[in-house]
């Protein structure tokens, strides 16, 4: 009696179970779930806990094509309390797109040019005084970037026009004497001290092994660049270093008079650090143990190397001091704050959320004292 009843139940349950499993299979096929989690964003938030929040620019409606791969570069006169501003710069291959941003506005008059250094050197903000001739509107904002890749080209300066868009009238900012042979394959720009910026340029000849030429020059940041500054270039034909791909980091370090280079060989293998001890005519020395491409030399005599979502701090001799996971946080530049006489590293992070009007971009600006960077590590 009971077994007969159980038999009926089993049959009915099998049918229902089959239908249930079929429904689950359909549900599975329809599902397209990604968890509310962005690893880079979370890592940046973790890193931000050790930084000082300076300002937030929002909401900024940035077109999708412009947003992807771009980042925010604060202006040199960045005023968090009054009108925080800067540039949205986007590097895609050899295309460089830059647009001026202030508050929640991005100006559509962006400037598109060719930057053969790719992500190796994109742009650096200039002071209002440095580009006062090029941009006489208020506020006078400007960028310096690298145009082209050959000797006939040079350092390019862009300034804002009266419409706040970037003026499509670049000026020649840096000259060389003598003009090195080959193409520009490395560059850097940094704030060197309270009164000077420093630009460094590296040329590479087409010969094998290549000849390297170029050098560095300090330019005052409180005066108009009425005329181009001149780099007295030296050269290295020793063959001690292999040929680099365009986009290398190259910078002069005034504290030890070395010229550092970091990048990728022609075969895409990394040569993350080497230096010429005195000038490019001295024999280069290769540093080992550096895990990522160097992107800056800090006032604290540290090499800052930036990998994918992680930053490393090395001594000038290549010893690892610390590293930290930064996620989507972008290192902007090191800045000398004349109000307190201290150096700060500026970081920016952008994220976006979708609303009915499109993608709203939020930009956060952070900073920390350069001397505190060593203790921010993992």
């Amino acid at each position: 009696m009971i077994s007969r009843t159980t038999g009926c139940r089993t049959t009915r349950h099998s049918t229902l179970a089959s239908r249930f499993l079929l429904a689950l299979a359909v549900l599975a096929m329809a599902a397209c779930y990604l968890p509310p989690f962005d690893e880079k964003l979370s890592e940046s938030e973790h890193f931000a806990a050790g930084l000082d929040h300076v300002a937030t620019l929002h909401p900024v409606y940035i077109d999708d094509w412009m947003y992807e791969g771009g980042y925010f570069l604060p202006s040199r006169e960045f005023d968090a309390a009054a009108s925080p501003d800067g540039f949205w710069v986007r590097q895609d291959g050899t295309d460089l797109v830059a647009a001026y941003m202030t508050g929640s506005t991005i100006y559509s008059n962006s400037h598109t040019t060719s930057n053969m250094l790719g992500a190796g050197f994109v742009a650096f903000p200039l002071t209002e005084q440095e580009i006062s001739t090029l941009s006489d509107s208020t506020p006078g904002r400007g960028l310096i970037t690298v145009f082209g890749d050959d000797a006939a080209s040079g350092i390019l300066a862009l300034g804002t026009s009266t419409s706040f868009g970037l003026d499509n009238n670049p000026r020649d900012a840096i000259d060389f004497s003598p003009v090195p042979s080959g193409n520009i394959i490395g560059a850097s720009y940094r704030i060197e001290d309270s009164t000077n910026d420093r630009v460094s340029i590296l040329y590479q000849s087409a010969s094998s092994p290549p000849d390297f030429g170029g050098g560095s020059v300090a330019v005052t940041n409180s005066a108009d660049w009425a005329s181009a500054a001149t780099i007295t270039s030296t050269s290295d034909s020793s063959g001690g270093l292999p040929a680099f791909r365009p986009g290398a980091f190259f910078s002069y370090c005034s504290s030890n008079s070395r010229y550092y280079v970091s990048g990728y060989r022609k075969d895409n293998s990394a040569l993350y650090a080497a230096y010429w001890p005195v000038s490019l005519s001295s024999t280069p020395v290769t540093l080992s143990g550096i895990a990522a491409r160097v992107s800056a030399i800090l006032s604290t005599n540290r090499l800052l190397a930036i990998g994918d979502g992680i930053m490393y701090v090395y001594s000038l001799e290549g010893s690892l001091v610390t590293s930290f996971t930064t996620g989507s946080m972008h290192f902007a530049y090191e800045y000398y704050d004349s109000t307190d006489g201290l150096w700060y590293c500026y970081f920016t992070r952008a994220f976006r959320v979708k609303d009915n009007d499109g993608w709203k971009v939020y930009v956060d600006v952070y900073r920390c004292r350069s001397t505190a960077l060593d203790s921010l590590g993992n």
Partner: protein
Amino acid sequence: MGYDMKAFRFPLLLALLFAMAFSLGAQEQRRVCFSLSYPGSGEEAWRSSLEGALAASGRIGLVLRIPGGEDALAFAALHGCDVAVLVDVHAGEDTASPSVAVEWKIEKPIAAALAGADDDGNLLSGAFSAPLPDERRRATSFWLEIVGRVDAALAGLPPAGSADLAIEGPPGAIVSGLSKEPIVIPDSGSTSLRLRAPATYHWSASARERKAVSGVLNFLGPSALRLDLPGRDRFRLEAGFEKAAFPDFRFTWLPGPDWLFVRAGFSQYIGGLNLSEVSEDETPPVFVSYDLVVPTLGAGVLLGRPEGSLRAELGAEVGPRLMPANAATIVDPVAPIRVSLYCGLEWTLYRKSLLFFELGADWYPFSDGMLMKASYGDGDGFRWPRLSGGDWYMEFLSFRFGLRWSL
């Protein structure tokens, strides 16, 4: 010396009936149904006479007619008759004088309908011929032979209204629903009980550390009930599939009552499936990976009968969102905690295997609502409903399904 048996038949049967009537005493009276077929006119008179003869028996309390066209045994079973009497009257073969031939059968209708197929339920059968009776004889003595046989058949049945049920089960098991007071299985593991029969009983049984079981007993006569009480679920292991994308697992403990559970486990997003639609210019990867795991701890209740094959559940669980691949295995600063609220169903597929489906919502307290919205991704496809505030975020229609195994 010859005897005319026909001459003795009536007095003998009369004596038999009297004897039986005296022996009945205070016995319960039985219920009998009958059918009668007669080819000629006057069928109703034949039927009435048999009805009256049966009703006159002291052992028979109620006589029911089986309507024409009805299945006699089914009718008898349906109306709780102890026996069914099937009578067929037709013309006799004696051409010298009018006669009738009577064929009769006495059957156990309930047994015939519900017992094994090899038991056709036939108790007695026979036939006799007699001169065509007049109305008076038909009302007095014509049916005495059949009535006597019916009385004899009824006397051979188990005592009316009761039979013994043997119960076998684990010592200490408590059986309810069979008697006014619950029955406790003794240490010997078996007991017996006299129950009214035929009857239907809804019974349930429970024992310590065992699952409660219930059932329906169609009690027709002496039989045995074996209690198969499986061990109660104390621990369960389950493999789930969150949002049909990410495998996870849970370990469940049922600490005491059948309705309370505590469970722990983790959700992981290190390996999963991305079944989102393929756009025209981009094919997303089928396998996705995120540096995120969520160890969980929760509790809930199971609703419905423990022995039921389908039970509902309500629960909640909480867990930190960890990023294990990070150098320091940090807690996600954007949303450090996930609280899941859910309801669900579990379905016993086979004894220790259950299918489950849970539907609910994920709440992220102490989170950055804006960053959580930004963390949701850039896809333009289907987006799960969600709400957010300054320091919280909530995602609806979280679901998971999978299999559970009782350990």
